[in-house]
C-alpha cells in the first residue's frame, strides 16, 4: 500500500517534470526539470530494489551529464521572443516526427514478445538474501559478459577520441604553457643583464628584457655581443646615440587627461 503510494508520487512527478522539460520557455528551467525527472527515476529504481542503479543514475546523469548541460545552456544567449517566432514554422515538422514516433511505439507495444531464453541466463544471478545488487550486477557484467562489456567500452572510447579530434584545434596564436620547462628554468639561462647607458633606455640595445629562449639572439639588432651592439656602443661613446626624449608638455603624467 505504502509502496504503491510512493510509486505513484514518483511516477507522477517524473511524468510532469518530463512534460515541463519540453514545455518550459526558459531552457535553464528545462534542464532543471530534467534533473528533477532523473531524480524521480532514481526514486523509482530504489522502490524496485535496484539501489546500485539508482545511485549510479544520480552520480552519472545528475552529477555529471546534467551539470554540463546546465553549464552550456546557462551560457547560451537566448532571445525568447525570437524563439517563439519559430514555433509556427517548425510545428508541422515537429508534429510529423512526434506522430511517427508515437505510431512506432504503438507498433512496438502490439508486437511485444518476451525473450524465450531468459531461463538460460537466470542462473547467472543467483539470488540470496545476503547478496547485494552490486555484487549481482558485477557478476553479470564483469564475469559472464566481460567481452561484450569491453566492446561497449571500445565503442565509447572511439566516440571520445572522435569528439576530441573533431574539436581540438591547434591555434597558432594561442600561448601554451609548459610547466616542466618553467620549473627547469634557472635565472642564469633565462635573463640577461644589459649594460644600459644613462638615459638611453633598454630599447637602444634591441628590445625589452625577455627570456632569451623566446627569440633568436642574432636576429635582434643591437643585442649585447653582436656587431650591431658594438656599433651602438661606439656611437654611444662619442655621445651621438644618446637620445633623450623630452615629453612635449612638461614631465610625464602632468598633461595626461
Amino acid at each position, binding site marked *: 500500500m505504502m509502496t504503491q503510494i510512493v510509486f505513484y508520487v514518483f511516477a507522477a512527478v517524473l511524468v510532469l517534470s518530463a512534460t515541463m522539460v519540453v514545455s518550459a520557455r526558459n531552457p*535553464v528551467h528545462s534542464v*532543471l526539470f530534467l*534533473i528533477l525527472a532523473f531524480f524521480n527515476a532514481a526514486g523509482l529504481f530504489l522502490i524496485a530494489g535496484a*539501489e*546500485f542503479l539508482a*545511485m*549510479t543514475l*544520480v*552520480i552519472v546523469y*545528475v*552529477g*555529471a551529464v546534467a*551539470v*554540463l548541460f*546546465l*553549464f552550456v545552456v*546557462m*551560457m547560451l544567449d537566448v532571445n525568447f521572443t525570437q524563439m517563439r517566432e519559430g514555433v509556427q514554422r517548425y510545428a508541422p515538422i515537429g508534429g510529423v516526427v512526434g506522430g511517427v514516433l508515437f505510431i512506432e511505439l504503438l507498433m512496438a507495444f502490439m508486437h511485444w514478445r518476451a525473450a524465450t531464453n531468459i531461463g538460460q541466463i537466470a542462473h547467472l544471478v543467483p539470488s540470496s538474501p545476503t547478496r*547485494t*545488487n*552490486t*555484487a549481482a550486477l558485477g557478476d553479470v557484467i564483469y*564475469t559472464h559478459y566481460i567481452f561484450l562489456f569491453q566492446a561497449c567500452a571500445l565503442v565509447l572510447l572511439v566516440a571520445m577520441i572522435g569528439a576530441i579530434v573533431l574539436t581540438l584545434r591547434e591555434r597558432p596564436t594561442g600561448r601554451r*604553457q609548459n*610547466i616542466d620547462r618553467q620549473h627547469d628554468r634557472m635565472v642564469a639561462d633565462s635573463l640577461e643583464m644589459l649594460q644600459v647607458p644613462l638615459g638611453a633606455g633598454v630599447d637602444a640595445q634591441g628590445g625589452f628584457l625577455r627570456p632569451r629562449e623566446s627569440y633568436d639572439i642574432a636576429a635582434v639588432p643591437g643585442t649585447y655581443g653582436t656587431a650591431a651592439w658594438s656599433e651602438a656602443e661606439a656611437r654611444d661613446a662619442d655621445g651621438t646615440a644618446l637620445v633623450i626624449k623630452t615629453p612635449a608638455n612638461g614631465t610625464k603624467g602632468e598633461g595626461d587627461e
Partner: protein
Amino acid sequence: MADFFFHTTLGQLLLIVLESLAVLVPLLLGVAYLTLAERKVMAAMQLRKGPNVNGPFGVLQAFADAIKMLTKETVIPSGANRMLFLFAPFLTFSLAMIAWAVIPTGNGLAIANINVGILYLLAISSLGVYGMLIAGWASNSKYAFLGGLRSAAQMVSYEVSIGLVIVSVLLAVGSLNLNDIVLAQRHVWFCLPMFPMFIVFFISALAETNRAPFDLPEGESELVAGFFVEYSALAFGLFFLGEYANMFLMSGMVSILFLGGWLPPLAIAPFTWIPGPLWLIAKILFCLFVFIWVRATFPRYRYDQLMRLGWKVFLPFSLAWMVLTAGFLMVTGLLPGGAG
C-alpha cells in the same frame, strides 16, 4: 517505551526524527564553532589574536555572527530569478545535511546503514555543484555567474579523481557499505598502505569544498565573492553553513575511508576506553584543522593550474594506483569477495 519506538509506525518515525536531531544539532553547533576555530587558528598562525571581544576568548562570536545574519535584510537583486535565487542556498544547505544520514559513528550506528553508502555520499557531494551553479545564474550578475561556472568545472573535474580513489579503497574492502569500510580497517588504517591516495583524496576534498588554495569560485580578488556575491542575510547564512557543513562531511569521508572511522589507532587498553564516536569526532576535527592550516599556508591556484592538477596529475595517478592496487590484491590473493 521501547515497544512504542520499535513496533509502531509513529514511534519509528519519531525515532528517525530524534536520530536525525542527534546528528544535526551537534553538526550545526560544530559548524558555528568551526567558523570561530578557523578565525582563531588562522590568527594564531599569523601572530594575531583573532576574535576576542564577545565572551571569554571570543567564544560567543559565533552566536553574535548568527544573530547579525538573521536580523539583516534579504536583498534580491532586480532581474534575478526570484525562485531559483532563493532555492539555491536551501539546496546547498539541505544537501550538506542529508549526507550525514549514512555516516556511521560507531559499529552499526548510522541513521541509515545502506548497502551503497559510499555511492550515496558520492552522489550527494556531486549534487553540491547545483547550489553554486544555480546561485550564480539566478543572481543575474557577471561575477556570480563566473563564480558558478568555475565551481561547476572544478567540482566535476575533481570528482573524477575522488571516484577513482574511492574505487581503490573499495577494492581492498569488497563492499560499498560504509560500516564494512571501517571494519575492514581493524588491522591497519588505509592511510598507511594507500598513503598517496590519502593525499590525493584530501587535496581533491579541498577542491570539492571550494577551500583554499582552490577557492577560485569565490576568489575575492577577482570575483568579489564569486557565486554568492549577491546574497545577504539568511540566504548568505545558509550558503555559509552549507559550505562549512560540507567541510565536516569531507573530513568525515576522509576519516571513514582512510583514518579508520570510529576505530582507535590500536585496539589496546587506553585507546579502547574512549568510545568510538569520540574517535570519529577527533579524526574529523584533525582533518578540519588541516583544512584551516592549508588555508593559512598556501596561496590561491590559478585556474588553469587547478585544471591541470585535476586532469593531468591526479587522474592518471589515481588511475595507475587503482590498477596497481587491483593487481597487488589479485597476486597476493587478498582480494575480498571470494572471486580472487
